[in-house]
């Protein structure tokens, strides 16, 4: 029974499901979401705080102190994003650095119609995709062997800390990592991902399904390894 207590956060389910079925369901869900959005469109007007406004103005004037303040305010969050897209920490450093240089160079083009964090986040994601483009471009062209993920287990991530999850995401093949980040965490639609990465919607969906399946497998493996360590 002890092994079940360790596995307590992973509950087993019967049955299996193919990736194609998953893709179909996601497609239907996206259509439903779009329909819902069409009927209940609400537009939020962002009014920046006076502090944020002043900070942006000072950054536009290239005041170094303001730039530093902006950097210190958002760098930790953006670094976490960069870490998710990069394969190594050094690559994440690059992404963050390039992103902030671009932010300061183009901040006058920020229309202030949304919180500046969103704008910065978008730049970081774009930079991350740009940095990894050569790798995932190649990956998308290659044939991917299908992943048979047949387990119906509810994986609870609470037992994993952030860095462990980060390393697992980084172990995903090129292409999978980007699509998973964009869809599951950033909340992009497959159509948007397809446009961002220059791939078809179908490719985006299949890559995502495979990425998720592979992640689930890796998490289960990690969990099993953890369990064995506990036994010892």
């Amino acid at each position, binding site marked *: 029974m002890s092994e079940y207590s360790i596995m307590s956060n992973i509950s087993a389910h019967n049955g299996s499901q193919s990736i194609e079925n998953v893709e179909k369901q996601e497609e239907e869900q996206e259509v439903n979401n779009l329909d819902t959005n069409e009927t209940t469109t609400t537009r939020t007007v962002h009014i920046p705080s006076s502090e944020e406004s002043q900070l942006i103005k000072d950054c536009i004037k290239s005041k170094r102190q303001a730039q530093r303040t902006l950097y210190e305010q958002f*760098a930790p969050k953006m*670094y976490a994003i960069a870490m998710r897209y990069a394969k190594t920490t050094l690559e994440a*450093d690059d992404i963050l*650095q390039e992103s902030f*240089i671009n932010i300061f160079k183009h901040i006058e083009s920020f229309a202030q119609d949304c919180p500046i964090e969103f704008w910065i986040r978008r730049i970081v994601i774009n930079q991350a995709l740009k940095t990894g483009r050569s790798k995932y471009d190649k990956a998308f062209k290659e044939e991917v062997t299908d992943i048979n993920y047949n387990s119906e287990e509810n994986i609870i991530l609470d037992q994993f800390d952030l860095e462990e999850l980060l390393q697992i995401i980084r172990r995903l093949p090129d292409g999978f990592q980007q699509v998973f980040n964009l869809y599951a*965490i950033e*909340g992009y639609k497959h159509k948007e991902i397809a446009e961002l990465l220059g791939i078809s919607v179908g490719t985006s969906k299949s890559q995502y399904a495979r990425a998720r399946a592979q992640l689930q497998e890796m998490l289960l493996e990690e969990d099993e390894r953890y369990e064995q360590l506990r036994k010892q």
Partner: protein
Amino acid sequence: MKGMNNFGNNNRKQLDKQFEQQFKNKFQNAQFAPPAHLWEQIDAALDAKPWYKRPLFYWTSGLVAALLLVVMFCFTLVYDNSTTPSNNDFVNADKNKIENRIDKGIKDRNIDNSSTNNNTELSNSEKNTAQKNNLTADYNTKNFNSNSSNSSIDKSDNSTNITNTNQKIDKNDSDVAISIALNNKDKNKDLGTSATDETIVETTNTLELTNILADIKIDWSKYLPIGNPHFEQKDIFIKVDSTNEAIANNKNSQNPIEDAKKSSGIALTLGINHTQGIYKPSFRTDSLHSGLTVIEAYSSNLADTLPQMNISGNYQQTGFDVALQFGKNKRWSFNTGIGMGKANYSFGSTNYTRDTVLLGNPLIASTNNVEVNYEWLQIPIAIGYQFGESRAKKFSGFAQLGTAIELLSSYSYTSADPNFTYALGNHRTTNTQVWTQAGINYHVTNRWTLWGGGTYKSSLSSLINENGVTFSSQAYGWQVGTRFTIFKSGE
């Protein structure tokens, strides 16, 4: 079973949603502290100027241009002051030759025609016939140094005076008609309308004249190097006879007119060249990159270090060149060709690795030595200018300015550390360089030239396609080559 499947699908869907949501929750507001040095690098990058705004670029370009101008100006100045002869120089130097030849012609004529041609007035038709007995001397000065009016021939009372500035040649003989072709303005003017009333007859239509009495060998080069504007204006030939035999005899002889013609028009030259020099790469980081994209696998500090490193290597290039010379005296030229070049440089570096599995691990330093090799195909396109020529006509100077398009054919490196991977971004396969060259020609013959000089080239844009990093190169060295003129207009 179908119901089971639907149940399973719905369940799966729910699980997947939960799975995604868990990830989203975990990472939505995740934060990691960036490395402390990152802000310093951003700070430095924000201060960096693009290459075209850097003072060094302007200083270097300006210095090279100024140097070329000074050299060209000095050559022209020295040449103008020392080699342009005055009219007196010219006449004094060759007066005796002209006098002697005219004397000889007069004597010959007097022997042959002493009884029949005394006091004979020349008519147009008579002059233009081959068997004419009159002795015609053509003293052709072709707009002689714009002082043609100073030249005069006085013929009166059976005496002929050739006057050029203050120099006089007096011929006390009766039947001598002397024609002067001053310029090209009046081809059809009659030659020697009258031996008694017109003392100056202008013509350049030498075919109308009788044949050349003598090929007066005047060494024009000792006064007038090729390219001197006075060169063409100093042609002299004397015609005193018109026999077919004499014409035939003189057809193949060289005379100053031919030399004058050579100095204008176009010419095509082919050549080979070799360059040996120093290759200096320079790395500039608008933002100081960490290693993965700049120096793959290793760390940030190599990129920080490279800009400060005084890296230099060797380069050599061998190629063929083609030049189309044009313009007055063929001073200008359009130059192109093709060359194969290679360069190498090496540097030592301290590389830093970090275990990427465990975050926050310290960097581990290690030393390494890397040697980088490039090979390229180069196509130069330049405008050249030839200036100055020594009195002996053997030496002249040249300068060229243009671009050199380099097509990278190979890039490789060797590393002391086998695990080191050096990927300085994606190298551009086509690069454009600003290219200049200056040197000295040694004219072995009319058509064969040896040359040597210096060359400098600098890349106009980054050699690598890497955002935020500029990898430029400069190369300077010595060149030697040889050129053969395969075509000259007018010959």
